[in-house]
């Protein structure tokens, strides 16, 4: 289903929880399928129109606002994260249909480990549940050509999550239609420190000047081009230690909607803004020495 949670005030929290549970079970009734297919047809038409202009190659998302969404609907925080996951699936589908090749999502920062242990554990459990759910749907991932990449300091994760992540990366390594980069246990400063450490240990760098290409080669995000658009939801305009190196010339878009409330119209607005500034951004990218394109 393609919808956002931007619903009127009449909904009670219990109704919201039931709606979430229903969407999670993915009801397969005829009405839902019919509605879904007609909405999908309109969406694909809209994307055909948008594709007349340049389409972003890489879109990055900071998934901010899940806890505020839960508080707004008087639910527990974990339900906010579940609602966020549903929004994520919707947006990934939209990006796939639009023709975006790389999608990066900021799921968990190293600084988030400072939160309450219960909250961290519930996020980790949810992540494990969803990764294992995706592994069960391996055939669908292969059908759509989705490759999963987990970037970050994975040694900081607990063993079960790290093993599942590595399994998911291995299982989808051959797919290349859409690359979903999941930043978990990630901060940009940690990435740059790691790259500096690797540069110093790299025998080929020893004795010569360290260059931009050397640093980029050792980043967690090596091989992934720089994002064209960085979307941060919930109206906060800050980078929060996410892709500081890679977003030096990216369009920053910060809609006021909370992450579970984000919908198709936000993505369309971001793409339209990108199309307006894209010629200038492309020339700026060409000035950067050896930047990944």
């Amino acid at each position: 289903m393609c919808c956002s949670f931007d619903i009127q005030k009449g909904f009670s929290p219990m109704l919201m929880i039931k709606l979430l549970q229903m969407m999670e079970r993915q009801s397969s009734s005829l009405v839902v399928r019919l509605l879904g297919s007609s909405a999908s047809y309109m969406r694909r038409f809209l994307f055909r129109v948008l594709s007349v202009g340049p389409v972003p190659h890489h879109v990055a998302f900071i998934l901010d606002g899940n806890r505020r969404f839960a508080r707004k609907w008087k639910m527990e925080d974990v339900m906010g994260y579940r609602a966020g996951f549903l929004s994520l699936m919707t947006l990934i589908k939209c990006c796939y249909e639009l023709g975006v090749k790389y999608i990066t999502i900021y799921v968990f920062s190293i600084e988030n480990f400072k939160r309450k242990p219960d909250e961290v554990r519930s996020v980790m459990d949810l992540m494990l549940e969803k990764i294992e759910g995706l592994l069960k749907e391996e055939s669908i991932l292969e059908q759509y050509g989705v490759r999963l990449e987990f970037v970050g300091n994975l040694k900081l994760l607990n063993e079960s999550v790290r093993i599942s992540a590595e399994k998911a990366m291995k299982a989808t390594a051959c797919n290349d239609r859409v690359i979903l980069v999941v930043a978990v246990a990630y901060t940009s400063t940690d990435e740059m420190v790691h790259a500096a450490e690797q540069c110093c240990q790299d025998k080929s760098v020893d004795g010569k000047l360290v260059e931009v290409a050397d640093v980029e080669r050792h980043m967690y995000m090596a091989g992934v081009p720089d994002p064209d658009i960085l979307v941060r939801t919930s109206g906060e305009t800050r980078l929060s230690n996410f892709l500081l190196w890679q977003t030096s010339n990216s369009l920053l878009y910060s809609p006021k909607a909370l992450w579970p409330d984000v919908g198709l119209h936000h993505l369309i607005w971001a793409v339209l803004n990108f199309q307006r500034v894209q010629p200038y951004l492309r020339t700026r990218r060409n000035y950067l020495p050896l930047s990944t394109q």
Partner: protein
Amino acid sequence: MDQLKLIKLQKSVPPSNFRNPKLPPFQNQPRRQRMASLQLRLSFTPSPLKLRQQVPRRSLDLKLPPRALSSAIKAATVNGHPGEDALLKGTTAPAQFSGEDSVALPAGLRRESIPRHVAVIMDGNRRWARMRGFPVGSGYEAGVRALRRMVELCCKLGIKVLTVFAFSSDNWFRPKVEVDVLMALFDRGLREELQYLVSADVRISIMGDSSKLFNSLQALLANAMETTQNNSRLHLIVAVNYSGRSDVVQACQKLAVEVKDGLIEPEDINEFLVERELGTNCTDFPHPDLLIRTSGELRVSNFLLWQLAHTELYFTDSLWPDFGEDEFLQALSSFQERQRRYGC
């Protein structure tokens, strides 16, 4: 709100000879307007004061808030000299700054929420000049005046560090004429303002690769840094030939040399060591609390990559030469309303 919108419009209004189909044909315009547009076409760089006097402005019908005029009025009356020069330059005359000059904060601003370090990307000078039919050099000159206003405001509000993005390493790709005008402006601006910086207790530092600049400019910059190094009221860091990526790479290079010399192990490299080698190592507050970018563009443009990890970003449509006290106070009000969680 409407008043603010109209003030913004007034500051960015194109000259009267701008081709606007809604304007009446030339013969039907009032005589004053026709004379003004003819003068604009004939003159090369009309002075802003003459422009204000001759081109009819909608602002004459508006009641501007007293704050917007306060700096101009102060400039006009300091030391008893009427303010034509001050209005032309758009600044106050060099004054003796003392503790009593720190005025009370405007209503709505809390002292404890004033950012310690403000970074500014001064964008929009060329657009400002093009909209008025001026050459690009006038836009940069107006930008320097706006920077002077910003330095005074930061001194008054108690901001400790102000970092400005004067020239990016990507800007070398601009036309050579424009780059030469900019370099000449740096030179002239620094010579003229050094005395003011000394009297205002402002310390100036330069960040970026200054080796590509002219020798005379390098010497001037070194002299300015040495002359003002003991000043403590405000630390002005000017990023010249700066690129955030190059800054991080040169820090990695220095660490690689230290590893090669056996001073540290690669495993010892941490965020503290990298930050020590960055261009902002000259200040105790290297991380900006607030980054302001003018002219409506929504990007960071390779400025202070490492340091912007938790910086609040503020984007305004106002062009840099028009960025004054009102706009800055709006930015500070917006900053005060933000909830900074640092990942928690």
